[in-house]
């Protein structure tokens, strides 16, 4: 299909693992679920800095970044990614997150610009619905 407007034919999402934790089962499950829902998913691999993830997001022209953090460093790393995107004139790339995140931390993360936080036990369909909806809104598409 040829796209005539500015909206892409396929949405692209970066799944990133910032920081020191080495557990990427959750990140891989989400990457796989997004793939099966028709997204092109770039997986960063482990131990990325926020700077590296933002650079990757820009080179890959993704619509959004999903950050998986199980180390407890989410209060620093997630807002860092949001801030660096803004500094690179790329704040149209939305950020969402998942992992071991205490409920009490979520309001502050959302305040810092993280669009959604998914904690353990979230069905993958919920994550996909969020990503699909957020991408559609970004390009002013009606929700089907």
């Amino acid at each position, binding site marked *: 299909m040829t796209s*005539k407007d500015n909206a892409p034919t396929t949405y*692209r999402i970066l799944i990133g693992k910032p920081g020191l934790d080495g557990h990427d089962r959750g990140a891989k499950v989400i990457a796989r679920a997004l793939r099966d*829902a028709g997204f092109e*998913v770039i997986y*960063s691999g482990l131990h990325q800095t926020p*700077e590296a993830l933002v650079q990757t997001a820009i080179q890959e022209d993704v619509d959004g970044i999903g950050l998986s953090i199980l180390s407890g460093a989410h209060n620093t790393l997630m807002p860092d990614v949001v801030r660096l995107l803004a500094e690179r004139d790329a704040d149209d790339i939305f950020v969402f997150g998942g992992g071991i995140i205490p409920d009490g931390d979520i309001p502050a993360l959302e305040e810092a610009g993280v669009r959604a936080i998914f904690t353990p036990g979230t069905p993958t369909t919920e994550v996909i619905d969020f990503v699909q909806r957020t991408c559609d809104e970004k390009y002013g598409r009606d929700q089907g």
Partner: protein
Amino acid sequence: MRSIDDLDKRILSGDVRAAARLMRLIDDRAQRARTFLSALQPHTGSAYILGVTGNPGSGKSTLVNQLIHQFRARDQTVACIAVDPTSPFSGGAILGDRVRMQDHAGDDGVFIRSVATRGHLGGLSRSTPAMVQVMDAMGYDVVIVETVGVGQDEIEIVRLADTSLVVLVPGLGDDIQAEKAGLMEIADVFVLNKSDLPGSDRLKREVQTMLSLYRATDGDDPLPAIVQTSATGKQGLDELVAAIDDHRLALETNRPTSVRNRNRCAHLIRAIARTELDILFDQKATSKRFDDLVDDVEKGKIDPYTAAEKLTRWLTE
């Protein structure tokens, strides 16, 4: 994101965000990509294009990661297009080649772009040739194109690259595999990766035997070099770079830049035309008229060959 009206100017000034956006327009076959590509065309032709192909799991991405180190150590800037397969069922893809190239995150002299095949066969995406043009216009010294993990016949890379590396690993077959057509014929350099595994020396003998037979009849091109490497163990990389340099030198002696540019132009025209044809074909082959044609064949009114002839004629209407 700002307006995209001046993408070409921003790309020429080195703006990675703009280049990344144009690559996506190309991948999406957006009409707008065309104008920008035309504007970039005069600025292309100076990048050295290195193709890396081979079986899935042969270590292509890890090898590319090491090659980027080698080129960066010589102060060359490097762009890389890494192709991974698209799911035929969902249309989605997991693009994971970057995982092996993390060493270069944060280096502004390296631009890596992951691309999905989106149903295209041949080892590349339809968009790859035009994406190479964008990276070339940005002034990258070397553009590395890593194909999907290929079988025997996905050899489109050879039309695009100045130098093609074919990455082989031990244990995938006996010497008759080495005699087969396709992949084994396109190498400018054979890279025998994972040479720390048993069987690497035997693989080397098999490739040598194969080369001694059929390349004897070939023209001016030098025999492909054979280099044993271990990309994870960082073995054989200096030899590999030397072999790549030798091929480049031979190429520049035997085939002047003008000839190579001409070949590349020809390939680009074919790739663009084929994409246009694909789009047109998809339209025609899903039309109401096409349904009627299927009805006719189903009912035995006409045979499939006549029907296909009609479909082909619609393409030029």
